[in-house]
C-alpha cells in the first residue's frame, strides 16, 4: 500500500537504526505519547533495534486507557437505559470501569454498538428517531474534529435524539504535567503525528522552550518512528531543544485550519481527570455553550457512579515513564488483559497490555 509499505522496508529501517547507533554517545530517555506508536513499536520490536543508551518509554498516549472510570461507568449506565443506543469505537468496549465494561452491559441487554465513525452514529440517530443515540466520544485532538463534525451535522438536521458523552483529552497539557513532575526523567518527546496533523506544531514550541526539551512530530510506521528517535537524539547530542517535523508528508506547521475551526466551534477546553494520572487542568474538551444541548451527561441523569481504582495499580507511574510494565509486581499475575486492574492494561494500546501481548511474561529488562 502506498505511503505505508515504503516506511516498513526492512533495509531502510535497519540503516536508520545503524545511524542512530553511530549518533548516540550518552544515555537518553525519550517518551512517545501515542497509543498507535506504542502499538507499532512493540508489534515490530522497534525498541529492540535501539542502541542500549536510548530508553523509549510509553507515555499517556492512549485516550482509551486514560478515559476516567466515572465516564465509563456513566456510559454503562446510559447504555442500560431502555430506548437508548450507545455507539462507541471498538477500543472502548472491553475497558472496565469500576464495576462494568460495555460488553457486559451489552450482555445484560444494553444496546451497545460498535461504529467506525461518529458520523455513523448520527446516521443511526437520523434513521431511528424513536431511539436516543449516544456517542461515546473518546480520543485526542485527532478524533475531536470528526466528533465536532458529527455534532454540527446533528444540529443541522435538528436531531433531538442524538447526544455525546464527551471524554476527549489534549496532549500538550499531559506533556506539561509529565515535565513538571519533580521525579521527571524524560529528556525528549516524540509528538503524536496525527494529533499534529490537526493541531500543528505551535503548542509544542512553548513547551520545548520552557522546559528545554526537543519535541519531534513523528509518524507511525517503523521508519517514521526510528527517524523520529534519531532526530530527537541528534538534538539531545547537540544540546538543541527545538520542535522538528519528521512526519512532513502529513503534518504542516499550522495543522489543519478547518479541523481546528471545527473543534473551536463545537468544543471548549475544560479540566479533565486522567485515569491513572489524576486531574490535569485544561486538558480536556467539553461541549461549548452553543452545543450544550447535545451533552449526554446532562440529558441522562446518571449519578451515583463510583470511581475507585485498584490500590495495586501503578498505571500513573507507567504513564509517566517512571516504571515499566514488567516492573510492576502485579504484571502478568494478578493483572492481565483478561483481568486488568487499571488503565494501562485495559486496552490493547495500553503500555501494559501491549507489553503483555508482544512480550509475554518470559522477557523483560533486556532493553535499557
Amino acid at each position, binding site marked *: *500500500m502506498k505511503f*505505508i509499505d515504503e516506511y*516498513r522496508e*526492512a533495509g531502510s*529501517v*535497519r540503516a536508520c537504526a545503524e545511524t542512530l547507533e553511530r549518533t548516540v554517545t550518552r544515555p537518553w530517555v525519550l517518551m512517545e505519547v501515542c*497509543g*498507535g506508536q506504542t502499538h507499532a513499536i512493540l*508489534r*515490530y*520490536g*522497534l525498541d*529492540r*533495534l535501539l542502541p542500549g543508551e536510548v530508553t523509549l518509554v510509553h507515555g499517556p498516549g*492512549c*485516550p*482509551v486507557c486514560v478515559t476516567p472510570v466515572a465516564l465509563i461507568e456513566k456510559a454503562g449506565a446510559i447504555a442500560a437505559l431502555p430506548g437508548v443506543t450507545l*455507539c462507541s*469505537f*471498538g*477500543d472502548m*468496549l*472491553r475497558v472496565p470501569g469500576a464495576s462494568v465494561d460495555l*460488553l457486559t452491559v451489552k450482555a445484560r441487554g444494553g444496546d451497545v*454498538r*460498535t*461504529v*467506525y465513525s461518529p458520523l*455513523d452514529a448520527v446516521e*443511526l440517530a437520523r434513521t431511528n428517531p424513536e431511539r436516543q443515540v449516544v456517542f461515546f466520544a473518546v*480520543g485526542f485532538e485527532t*478524533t475531536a474534529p470528526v466528533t465536532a463534525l458529527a455534532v454540527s451535522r446533528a444540529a443541522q438536521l435538528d436531531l433531538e435524539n442524538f447526544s455525546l458523552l464527551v471524554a476527549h483529552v489534549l496532549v500538550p497539557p499531559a506533556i506539561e504535567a509529565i515535565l513538571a513532575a519533580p521525579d521527571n526523567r524524560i529528556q525528549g518527546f516524540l509528538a503524536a503525528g496525527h494529533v499534529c496533523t490537526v493541531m500543528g506544531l505551535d503548542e509544542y514550541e512553548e513547551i520545548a522552550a520552557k522546559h528545554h526539551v526537543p519535541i519531534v512530530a513523528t509518524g507511525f510506521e*517503523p521508519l517514521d518512528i526510528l527517524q523520529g528517535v534519531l532526530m530527537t537524539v541528534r538534538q539531545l547530542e547537540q544540546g538543541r531543544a527545538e520542535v522538528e517535523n519528521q512526519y512532513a508528508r502529513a503534518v504542516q506547521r499550522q495543522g489543519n485550519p478547518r479541523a481546528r475551526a471545527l473543534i473551536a466551534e463545537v468544543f471548549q477546553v475544560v479540566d479533565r481527570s486522567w485515569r491513572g494520572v489524576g486531574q490535569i487542568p485544561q486538558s480536556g474538551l467539553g461541549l461549548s455553550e452553543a452545543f450544550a444541548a447535545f451533552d449526554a451527561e446532562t440529558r441522562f441523569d446518571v449519578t451515583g457512579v463510583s470511581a475507585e481504582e485498584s490500590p495495586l495499580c501503578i498505571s500513573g507511574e507507567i504513564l509517566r515513564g517512571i516504571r515499566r510494565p514488567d516492573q510492576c509486581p502485579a504484571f502478568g499475575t494478578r493483572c492481565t*488483559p*483478561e483481568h486488568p486492574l487499571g488503565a494501562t492494561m485495559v*486496552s*490493547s*494500546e495500553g503500555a501494559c497490555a501491549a507489553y*503483555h*501481548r*508482544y*512480550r*509475554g511474561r*518470559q522477557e523483560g529488562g533486556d532493553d535499557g
Partner: protein
Amino acid sequence: MGDANNCFHCPVPISRYAEVLMAHGGGGKLTRDLVEGLFIPAFGRPGAGPLHDGARLDLPAGRIVFTTDAYVVLPLFFPGGDIGSLAVNGTVNDLAMCGARPSSLSAAFILEEGLPMKTLARTAASMAEAARAAGVAVVTGDTKVVDRGKGDGIFITTSGVGVADPGLRIGPAEVCAGDAVILSGDIGRHGIAVMASREGLAFESEVQSDCAPLVDPVFAMLDAGVEVHCLRDLTRGGLATVLVEIAAGAGLNVRIEEDAVPVTPAVRGACELLGLDPLYTANEGRFVVFVAPGAAEQAVQALRSCPASAGAARVGEVLAGPAGTATLGGRFGADRILDMLSGEQLPRIC
C-alpha cells in the same frame, strides 16, 4: 446474497406460509410439510421408503470419524457465502482435518418465529450446493422454532461422519521438531467479508469469504504419499490462534515468518483501515499442515494443484523451544510471541 440467488431453484411449492411459525417446529403437520416441501427437495431423500428418526449409513471400511459444530453468523448472507454453506463446509472441513473422507451430515435448525420462508429455502439450497461440491449428503436433521426475538433468524448445528485410513496418525502429538509449516492460502478473507456487511462498519470491498471445502487439498497430499503430521483449519481466531493451540498441544515451538504469510491487498487495506491484524482475522477455507521436513516441497505442489489451495505456501517450521509457544519472526529481526486473544478482534481508532 448474489451467489445464493444464482443457484437457488425454487421448489414448488415451498410452503403455504410466507414465514416460519412456532408450529413448524412442533413435530406435527407443519413440520412434515417443511421437511417434505423444503428440506427434502433441497437435500434429496436419504434412501427409499418413508423417513425414519435416523439415517442408516453404509460406510466404507476404515476408522470412523465424527464431529459436530454449531453455526451462528450475522449477517446470514455475506459476500462469498452464507450460514448454510458455512454449516456444511465447517463440518466437512473438521472431518478432513482428521484425514477422513466426509460421508454424511446431519443438520439441526433452530429457527426464529417470523423468519421469511424464502430465507430458509435459500439457506437450504446453499447447503445442498455446498454438500454436492464437497461430495457429502445431508441425511438427517431436525427443526425447532423459538419465539420471535429469541434467535438471530437461523442457528444451524451440523454433525458429520467420515472415514479415515486406520493407519493414519494426525494431530498435534505427531508434530516433530524440524517439521515444515505450510499454509493453504491467503488469510483474512472471511473476517473482512463478514465485517464489510455489518451495520456500523460498512465498507465496499472486493473481498469474498473463503468459505470452501478442503477435502480435495487434504487428499491430494495424502494420496501423493506426503507424510502429514498435523492438519488444522483456520476459523474464528485466525492463523495465530491455530498456531498457538498446536504449539501448546505439541509442546514445541511453532515459528513462522511474517513476510511469508500471504495476505491479499484488499484484505490488508481493510485491516489497516480498521486496525485489525490479519493473523487474528477469521477464515473459513484455509488450513495449516505440518509435514515432515523432506515432504514440504511435495506438499506445496500437491496443494497448489487444487483450486481451494492454489495459493499454498510454506510459512515456517517447528523448533524444539521455547516449548509450547508460537513465534512470529518479524521483518526487522525482532521476534514476537503470538498469544491467544481474549475475545473477538474489535476495530480500533487508536
